[in-house]
């Protein structure tokens, strides 16, 4: 029996029926009815942000760290436009979000009414799907459908634009039904077994295999990570991952090659370049990975597992595409492998693994430490050592510190790194940390930040204070937009146009002004004690770690170069493995 409710009541009821416990939002005229029905219940907790962009990144952090859909609620006009950056970020990184936006009453749509904007028009290309609800009768179905679309197939953000008169209107509420959606929406999660048989055939013959895993393994849930570990256990294949896939395979394994791509390790990139079989599991051949396309892994047979058919052959043409959810595909791969053999192929792979060990011996992440200034790499290593035994979640901003976090912080579990990979949104990390902490109240949540990025969404520190969320903002303060400065050094004759962080705030005082704690550290000898002080403090902390100003983030594959042409740090030990000809290339 359907129940009569107002549109606003339906919104809250539908969220409850979808199992939503937290909503990140900001009120305004066009969503007041929804705020009123939120006020009259206490199952759903509303996290009041300071800027709608913050709400979207919080919801992303929440979603990425839990596997649930992140929910955002904002008003019409500026509320909706402020959310656009986070929606685009979620689209590029395949993060499931449902964003409810208020809209002016239907009779006023198109009249340039107060705080009107064409929300569905603006967000059409930065969402997986969006809706304008013109009739309250459609509202419950649309909300349930939005959750289904956001969380299935290749996940992504969905916007529901709800005019104010629809929020007031009375209608019949209906709960969710299974797979509620358009008849045309049928993501293919179950793979074709024939293709997996073929994949296993290739894997059994490979002499120089490498698994290249990505965000899709994380999207597929913790079971996919377990299955990946199982597959590697069986096959003995080495594994590298994109930034988005870090943690799906443990960094502590001897099969782990480190991240690949532009700032990936020497061993990962050379293994990709020289392999005879590449098994791409849930990664999308992004340009930060492939480098020069015509020189990308020229002699390999390529298998590509992806749930989105449009990812296949988009950038790199592959030999064996497998459409399906990573967890299902990995499960079948493991099963079929077991039916074929129970012997280890370690003997056959030995020469390849020996080659990889040689590349590893270059020690491409080595750096020259200093006893007077803090090196950013050292700061991350000390942070990692200090939190080793803890249940820790890391978020990052965008820049050099983000890459150093990926290189020097070891991730052993999935859903533990929240970072803006595809859009590269500075200002992502602090609000994302807030979102993660909302989902995991007792965990340790650290944003590895840059002093420039963190200023973009600094105001959300106030949200952390209000909701007693003890996030730690670990700023690697090099007084530069370091990543920009590095590119200017490489490409523009060291002309540091507008990349110096002038007039920086006093981060310690700033933290105190917000009602949090600030810590500054300038000398390597004080670092460990300061980190301990940060971790011991039961509340949000801004940690201003003064690091050397002009460090470059290496290794790096420069633009237009292939995987085997990377810039290594001066400390790299390339002497005994690369001949003269090779050396002029490195």
């Amino acid at each position, binding site marked *: 029996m359907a129940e009569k409710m107002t549109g606003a009541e339906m919104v809250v009821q539908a969220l409850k029926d979808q199992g939503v416990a937290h909503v990140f939002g900001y009120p305004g005229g066009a969503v007041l009815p929804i705020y009123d029905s939120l006020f009259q219940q206490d199952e759903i907790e509303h996290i009041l942000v300071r800027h709608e962009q913050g709400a979207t990144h919080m919801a992303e952090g929440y979603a990425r760290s839990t596997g649930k859909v992140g929910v955002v609620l904002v008003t019409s006009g500026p509320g909706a436009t402020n959310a656009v950056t986070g929606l685009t970020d979620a689209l590029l990184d395949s993060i499931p979000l449902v964003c409810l936006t208020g809209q002016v009453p239907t009779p006023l749509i198109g009249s340039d009414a107060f705080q009107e904007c064409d929300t*569905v*028009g603006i967000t*059409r*290309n930065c969402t*997986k*799907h969006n809706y*304008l609800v*013109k009739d309250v009768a459609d509202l419950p179905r649309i909300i349930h459908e939005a959750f289904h*679309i956001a969380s299935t197939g290749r996940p992504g953000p969905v916007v529901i634009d709800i005019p104010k008169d629809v929020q007031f209107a009375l209608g019949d509420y209906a709960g969710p039904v299974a797979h509620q*959606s*358009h*008849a*045309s*929406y049928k993501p293919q999660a179950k793979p074709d077994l024939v293709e997996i048989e073929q994949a296993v055939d290739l894997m059994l013959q490979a002499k120089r295999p490498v698994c290249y895993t990505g965000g899709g393994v994380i999207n597929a849930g913790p079971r996919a990570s377990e299955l990946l570990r199982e597959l590697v256990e069986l096959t003995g294949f080495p594994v590298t991952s994109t930034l988005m896939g870090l943690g799906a395979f443990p960094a502590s394994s001897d099969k782990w090659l480190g991240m690949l791509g532009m700032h990936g390790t020497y061993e990962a990139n050379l293994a990709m370049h020289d392999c005879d079989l590449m098994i791409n599991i849930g990664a999308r051949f992004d*340009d930060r990975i*492939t*480098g*020069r*396309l*015509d020189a990308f892994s020229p002699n390999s047979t390529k298998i590509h597992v992806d749930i*989105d*058919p*449009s990812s*296949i*052959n*988009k950038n790199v*043409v592959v030999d064996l595409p497998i459409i399906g959810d990573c967890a299902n595909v990995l499960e079948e791969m493991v099963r079929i492998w077991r039916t074929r053999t129970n012997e280890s192929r370690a003997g056959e792979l030995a020469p390849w693994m020996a080659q990889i060990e040689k590349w590893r011996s270059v020690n491409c992440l080595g750096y020259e430490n200093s006893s007077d200034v803090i090196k950013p790499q050292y700061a991350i290593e000390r942070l990692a050592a200090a939190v080793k035994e803890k249940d820790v979640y890391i978020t990052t901003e965008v820049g050099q510190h983000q890459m150093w976090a990926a290189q020097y912080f070891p991730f052993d579990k999935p859903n533990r790194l929240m970072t803006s990979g595809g859009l590269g949104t500075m200002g992502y990390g602090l609000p994302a940390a807030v979102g993660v902490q909302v989902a995991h109240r007792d965990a340790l949540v650290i944003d590895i930040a840059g002093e420039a990025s963190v200023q973009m969404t600094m105001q959300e520190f106030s949200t952390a204070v209000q909701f007693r969320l003890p996030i730690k903002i670990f700023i690697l303060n090099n007084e530069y937009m370091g990543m920009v400065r590095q*590119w200017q050094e*490489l*490409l523009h004759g060291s002309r540091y146009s507008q990349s110096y962080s002038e007039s920086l705030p006093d981060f310690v005082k700033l933290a105190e002004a917000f009602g949090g704690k600030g810590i500054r550290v300038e000398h390597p000898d004080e670092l460990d004690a300061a980190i301990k002080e940060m971790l011991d403090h039961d509340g949000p902390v801004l940690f201003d770690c003064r690091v050397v100003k002009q460090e*470059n983030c*290496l290794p790096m594959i*420069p*633009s*237009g*170069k292939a995987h085997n*042409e990377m*810039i*290594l*740090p*001066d400390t790299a030990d390339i002497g005994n493995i690369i001949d003269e000809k090779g050396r*002029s*290339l*490195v």
Partner: protein
Amino acid sequence: MNPHLRASGSAYFLTTDTAKIERHTLSVLVDNEPGILARIAGLFSARGFNIDSLTVSETEHEKGLSRITVVTVASPKVLAQIKLQLERLIPVHRVHDLTAEGKSLERELALVKVSGTGENRVETLRLADAFRAQVVDASIESFVFEITGKSTKIEQFISLMMPLGLVEVVRTGLAAISRGPDRM
């Protein structure tokens, strides 16, 4: 740092697609809902795909389905992406590449206004007759013709009318369907 490896250029790795460009007609079966045309057109512009012609109409009212016919020009690799990206849109049921599947029928309708007097007027009517264009409006000094056929036929007719006093043309864009008994 290894100075001989100083990079130059941009932050992206650019390669040019040298593959041959082809013209294809795609038939797209969609749910007839608000914004669907904007979704399709927006996808083409956002991803830099070309649209040569685009027509939409509701074809199966009871089921709420429309058919969109898009003529595009692209390399085979891009064509494959266009099809897959269209299929990714939630309200899209199916995309058929009529050109790749062969044996399709393509028709377009145009209304062509020509003005003139004397000899030109006679010549205009003679050519119209040869092209089976119908006179749908006439005045002392003008005609409006209705012509249907393949786009090439229509283009040819228009170019012949040019020196005879062509005033203006409107075209419907392409409607296309596969031959034989099967539905899309």
